[in-house]
């Protein structure tokens, strides 16, 4: 399959079967007669009562006991082949004549991407992982028709070896507190009805009809919600400043320019449940007094763009977006802008310049975008995750929200738990949970018996946190205290095969490419730091390099124009702080303890373990490996370019890196 927008449409089209799913594509042409407005459009909802009636009708039309096969169709599972699995289910259900008894729903990301394609069979909640098209006939015959569990498709606990049948019992899910991601596994993101059935747009109705804009702002302030983009600014205060700022029109913007490498919760939220983000934006616009909104989304996320576009269209057709929303007299509409692949455009002022059709260079900080933002008008920018929290706070009350989290950080946060960890995927946890709980209890620890070394949080602005701090409670303030930051929520686990100097170099290289170059401290400070890191990794480090890096770090932190430069030294300073011995090994001993930096390592073959299978010799691009069949092989160090192909190829662990 491909991820081109047009093909995503084709994919969606082919996924349609029942009338329930069909109406979304036709603008409601397939809606039950009493919901229809005569012609071809759905009836615009004119009051909370009409929304309630629609909800009741939709709920009544669904049988909660009916078998529903949900197939995760997020980007991760698409890459693992869920499309073919979906097709196979449709064919098999048809072939066995079960079409009337079984629903098939393609949903957004379930979060457990590494196990994809993921299939959950409701109402029981049976969890199958790595499902292949060839498994499908058996799943339908055995599980769907006869209620038998297929052992080999079950999740196996990495430590206990126990096989787990139900999704709710898989530790990866059981130990999470899912609020934002709670509905992802149940909603077809292209169906607004799926969202409405689960209480969608109730918060909007409540805000528009029972709350003054100031009361909405007050509720958000009291909830303690802080910006999920990373900086953690109090959302309610931002809204209030924007509402009070003189000037019209005011703009409301959703930041979906998720540029932090290693973080993809915004992608999954927009792809999997775009209406909850949209509902949050409409409520925010009402509170702020805005009628124009934008979603600024990365062009690297074509499925998120498509699903958001479909959501806007569907919401408009139901009168939930556009003029006179829900008959309240409030007008608000949203446009989508695709980013151009520039990391800096996640910064608020740069993002607004980009929306204006300019290069994304940040402005000076004394100009506050809530006063003078897009087109110099008051503009309120929040992250996808921030907007997605809003409907929950309005529905369940700020008191409920403050019951989750720590003193300074309320609610849940979604992290993308990736890197050297067993259960990679998206985890939503209450603020204040420890790193150890996330990485070892939910994440299942380090794969292949490896040893934990560090966890990197906060993307290129964040830092690496060592094992001694695994019991740190995770919230905005604690992470900052140890020299890292929350950032957008990337959590990259590293083991003893990860070189911390190389990681610092990796981030500096990233930042050098992404620095817009407008201010000298950032442009030059990053480039000079990178030069130093390059020479350390190349085995040419000099005494005093560590001190030089620290000095350059101070320059970046103190004098850069925007947060990109001010935080650029974090990856360097935090690794020096906690892994100074690795820097020293590189500089003084000309040694890379993790076996990563090419200039400082050699590959060799352990004659005891080598079986003489010749696999490595055949793959070696340099033909540097020689040896007879069934006899130990040898690497010619003069020819070896340390590409690591032999290490990846060897099935016997005979290739040694030192």
């Amino acid at each position, binding site marked *: 399959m491909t991820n081109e927008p047009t093909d995503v449409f084709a994919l969606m089209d082919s996924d349609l079967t029942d009338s329930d799913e069909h109406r979304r594509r036709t603008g409601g042409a397939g809606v039950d007669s009493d919901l229809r407005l005569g012609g071809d459009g759905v009836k615009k909802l004119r009051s909370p009562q009409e929304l309630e009636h629609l909800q009741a009708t939709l709920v009544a039309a669904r049988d909660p006991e009916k078998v529903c096969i949900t197939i995760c169709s997020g980007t*991760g599972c698409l890459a693992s082949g869920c499309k073919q699995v979906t097709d196979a289910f449709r064919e098999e259900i048809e072939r066995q004549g079960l079409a009337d008894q079984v629903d098939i729903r393609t949903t957004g990301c379930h979060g457990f*991407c590494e196990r994809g394609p993921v299939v959950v069979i409701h109402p029981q909640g049976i969890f199958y992982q790595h499902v292949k098209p060839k498994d499908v006939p058996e799943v339908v015959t055995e599980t769907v028709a006869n209620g038998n569990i297929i052992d080999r498709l079950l999740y196996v606990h990495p430590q206990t070896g126990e096989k787990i049948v139900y999704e709710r019992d898989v530790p990866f899910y059981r130990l999470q507190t899912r609020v934002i991601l709670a509905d992802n596994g149940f909603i077809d993101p292209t169906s607004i009805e799926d969202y409405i059935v689960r209480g969608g747009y109730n918060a909007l109705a409540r805000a528009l009809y029972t709350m003054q804009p100031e009361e909405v702002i007050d509720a958000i302030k009291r909830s303690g919600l802080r910006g999920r983009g990373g900086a953690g600014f109090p959302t309610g205060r931002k809204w209030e400043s924007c509402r009070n700022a003189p000037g019209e029109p005011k703009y409301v913007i959703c930041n979906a320019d998720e*540029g932090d*490498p290693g973080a993809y919760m915004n992608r999954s939220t927009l792809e999997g449940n775009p209406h909850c983000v949209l509902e949050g934006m409409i409520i925010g616009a009402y509170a702020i007094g805005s009628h124009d909104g934008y979603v600024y989304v990365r062009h690297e996320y074509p499925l998120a763009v498509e699903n958001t576009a479909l959501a806007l269209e569907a919401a408009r057709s139901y009168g939930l977006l556009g003029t006179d929303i829900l008959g309240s007299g409030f007008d608000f509409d949203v446009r989508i802008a695709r980013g*151009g692949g520039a990391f800096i455009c996640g910064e608020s002022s740069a993002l607004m310049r980009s929306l204006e059709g300019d*290069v994304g260079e940040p402005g000076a900080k004394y100009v506050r975008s809530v006063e003078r933002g897009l087109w110099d008008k008051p503009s309120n920018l929040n992250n996808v995750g921030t907007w997605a929290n809003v409907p929950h706070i309005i529905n369940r009350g700020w008191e409920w929200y403050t019951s989750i989290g720590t003193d300074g950080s309320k609610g849940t946060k979604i992290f993308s738990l990736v890197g050297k960890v067993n259960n990679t995927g998206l985890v939503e946890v209450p603020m204040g949970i420890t790193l150890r709980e996330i990485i070892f209890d939910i994440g299942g620890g380090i794969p292949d018996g490896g040893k934990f070394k560090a966890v990197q949080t906060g993307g290129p602005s964040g830092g690496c946190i060592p094992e001694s701090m695994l019991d740190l409670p995770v919230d905005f303030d604690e992470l900052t205290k140890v020299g890292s930051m929350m950032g957008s929520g990337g959590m990259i686990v590293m083991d003893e095969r990860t070189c911390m100097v190389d990681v610092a170099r990796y981030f500096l290289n990233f930042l050098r490419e992404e620095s817009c170059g407008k201010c000298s401290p950032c442009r030059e400070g990053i480039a000079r730091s990178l030069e130093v890191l390059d020479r350390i990794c190349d085995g040419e480090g000099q005494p005093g390099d560590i001190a030089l890096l620290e000095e350059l770090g101070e320059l970046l932190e103190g004098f850069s124009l925007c947060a990109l430069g001010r935080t650029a030294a974090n990856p360097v300073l935090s690794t020096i702080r906690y892994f100074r011995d690795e820097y020293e090994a590189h500089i003084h001993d000309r040694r890379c303890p993790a076996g990563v930096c090419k200039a400082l390592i050699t590959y060799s073959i352990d004659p005891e373990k080598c079986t003489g299978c010749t696999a490595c010799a055949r793959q070696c691009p340099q033909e540097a490996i020689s040896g007879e069949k069934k006899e130990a092989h040898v690497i010619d160090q003069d020819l070896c370019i340390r590409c690591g192909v032999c290490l990846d190829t060897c099935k016997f662990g005979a290739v040694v890196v030192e």
Partner: protein
Amino acid sequence: MALSVPHMELEMEMDVAIVERILDRHERAPSAIIAILQDVQDEVNYLPEGVMRYLAEQLDIPPSKVFSLATFYRAFSLEPRGKHLIHVCKGTACHVRGAVKILEALEREIGIQAGETDEHMLFTLETVNCLGACALGPVVVVDGEYHGQMTGAKSVRLVKKLQDNGKGQTKDDE
């Protein structure tokens, strides 16, 4: 649609009617220039200079501004790209799982560096900072199709398969 033929003698390398349609879709708003450039690139795979000049004239913005946008944003290419577009993800999760080795293997196999196109216009090799498919890392995307948990050897096989197809052979991998 009535078209005004550009009075500049330019190699458009693209049908003027398509450019006009894109301009109309964005209501010929100068502020929509980034979206317009994206749509142009979606059509012809890169931004031909003639098209950029034409857009500047039609939208009444300096050509230098169009050029600065086209070079500022990574998504844009000023050079024609190969038949197959290969993206190697350089996100952090992919990096710690060995993305560098994969990129180097592809560079060796195709004989070009990241950011380049081979002389037969068959492959363009690019890196991307994160594709948001981190759980599957390292990730390589070939013509929009995601390949997860890659190794150097696996990515070389992918390229070889495309090379063989390019030669008109029908050698299918498993």
